């Protein structure tokens, strides 16, 4: 230990804004809770490994749900048990980030049981800290998958019985049978010596991730005096006599040597110019079409809605694809019911000159409505000054809004004349680009080639788009 002063690690926030009162330095954890100690060990490790700015901490559901008030990392709070799935996504998108999934026993072993199995089995290059206190703490001390036989909990007042509740689950042993994981260890916070072992295990797990060696999980047996209904010092006896007797401490798997350190593909990018290097390649702007559309049509958020089977998802997908080919940032999210035909469907599309923060479009700047229920539902959500395109052949009312621009296109009739009413979606697409000039005809044609699987339909779609463009231009 080189440090002359042991104090609050820098990876903690200076003040905690969790509570509104004057106390801005205390956590919300109960006296004697293991979470606080673990947070300290993790924060200290991040300081010493120099990774604070790279850490993304996945906050679970459970007592540690508020870790983001304390740990000054990138933080995401996720749905119950889903931390490994979100950690996977973050790690794959940002391979240089150090992604920490921090989960309790209820979160990891109960509702998220399959999530952790799959992430471990894939050998995701993430670090999981599994805090096992053998009880549901936050919700009031109910039985957890790891509660011991005979343990009294709020839901097993006479003690856990194997007959009724099954046996406590040994997660490390279970995961160690998989090929995927690199490092799995169970430690404890019961004594100073064991705490130091935990401290080392935490560093090793993080180090492995930094070296791209794969999946690590450290299970930490952690006291919950409140849930166990004992005072903090007495809780240590129970840990020794009961918890550690059933959950053996030790390394269950460590194949770090067989999975040698790999270079980090993004490392140079980050270290060269931290903060800007992860931004867009600078040649992106050059790829944008020269003739830019009128300002009000730039960077649209679109909602495209209709019946399932009308091709609204394909319409949006084609727009997004064409946008991407043109050098824009794009997003596309479909939303539909269980029906393949006849249900309602819509998709949300973003096409932007800048990075898109969220793909959710709650107030579209453009609505393309291909049936009446969609127009009824989404017309009120259009932004003031926005654009509404609707299929006049199927929607027999005029828009109610007067603060938006609206264009009626006889899309289904036009498509019918071309020989197939199902090409109405492409008429609408054509009308949109004809009206706004956001995307070139060429980019859409290129996109069509990518998104239309049945090549014999491409001709029809091209005709439909061209017809739409005429209508769109006519409405300028």
């Amino acid at each position, binding site marked *: 230990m080189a440090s*002359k002063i042991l104090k*609050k690690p820098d990876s903690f926030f200076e003040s905690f804004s969790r509570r509104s009162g004057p106390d801005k*330095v205390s*956590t919300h954890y109960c006296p004697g809770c293991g979470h*606080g100690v673990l947070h300290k060990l993790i924060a200290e490790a991040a300081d010493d490994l120099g990774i604070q700015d790279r850490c993304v901490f996945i906050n679970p559901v459970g007592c540690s749900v508020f870790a983001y008030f304390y740990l000054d990392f990138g933080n995401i709070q996720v749905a119950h048990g889903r931390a490994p799935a979100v950690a996977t996504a973050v790690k794959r998108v940002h391979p240089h980030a150090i992604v920490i999934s921090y989960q309790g026993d209820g979160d990891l072993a109960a509702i998220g049981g399959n999530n952790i199995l799959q992430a471990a089995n894939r050998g995701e290059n993430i670090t999981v800290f599994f805090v096992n206190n053998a009880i549901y703490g936050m919700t009031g001390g109910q039985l957890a998958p790891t509660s011991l036989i005979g343990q009294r909990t709020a839901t097993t007042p006479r003690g856990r019985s194997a007959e009724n509740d099954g046996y406590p689950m040994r997660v490390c042993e279970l995961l160690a049978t998989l090929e995927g994981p690199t490092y799995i260890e169970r430690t404890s916070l019961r004594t100073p010596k064991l705490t130091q072992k935990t401290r080392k295990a935490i560093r090793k797990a993080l180090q492995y991730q930094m070296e791209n060696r794969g999946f690590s999980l450290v299970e930490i047996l952690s006291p919950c005096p409140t849930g166990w209904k004992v005072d903090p010092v007495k809780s240590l006896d129970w840990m020794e006599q009961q918890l550690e007797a059933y959950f053996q401490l030790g390394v269950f798997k460590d194949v770090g040597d067989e999975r040698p350190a790999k270079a980090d593909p993004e490392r140079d990018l980050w270290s060269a110019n931290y903060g800007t290097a992860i931004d867009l390649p600078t040649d992106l702007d050059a790829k944008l079409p020269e003739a830019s559309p009128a300002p009000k049509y730039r960077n649209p958020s679109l909602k495209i809605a209709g019946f399932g089977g009308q091709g609204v998802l394909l319409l949006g997908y084609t727009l997004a694809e064409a946008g991407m080919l043109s050098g824009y940032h794009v997003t596309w999210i479909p939303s539909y019911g269980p029906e393949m035909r006849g249900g309602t469907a819509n998709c949300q599309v973003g096409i932007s000159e800048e990075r898109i923060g969220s793909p959710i479009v709650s107030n579209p700047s453009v609505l393309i409505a291909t049936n009446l229920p969609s127009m009824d539902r989404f017309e009120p959500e259009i932004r003031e000054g926005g654009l509404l395109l609707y299929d006049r052949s199927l929607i027999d009312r005029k828009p109610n809004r007067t603060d938006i621009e609206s264009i009626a296109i006889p899309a289904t009739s036009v498509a019918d004349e071309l020989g197939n009413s199902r090409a109405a979606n492409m008429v609408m697409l054509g009308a949109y680009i004809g009206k706004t000039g956001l995307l070139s005809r060429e980019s859409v044609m290129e996109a069509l080639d990518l998104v239309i699987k049945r090549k014999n339909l491409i001709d029809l779609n091209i005709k439909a788009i061209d017809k739409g463009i005429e209508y769109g231009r006519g409405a300028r």
Partner: protein
Amino acid sequence: MAKETGVLKEACVVIDAEECKACYLCVHHCPQQVIEVSEGINRKGFHPARYKGTGCTGCGICFYACPEPSAITVYRKGAVKQ
């Protein structure tokens, strides 16, 4: 609480009485038994742990036992204290 400033000749532990939640894990684990329960009550309503004022070796065990991030600070011998 230690009152030294500058370069410390002896190790010492500083416990922020207002942050203490009285789990007493530091009292329990301290190998030198130089942390005790104080008689006073802090604003949280607890009798906070308190350094006896002498005998600390700077081992840091209390620091790693304490669940609160900044309730305990340990200054080792030779540390510069402000």
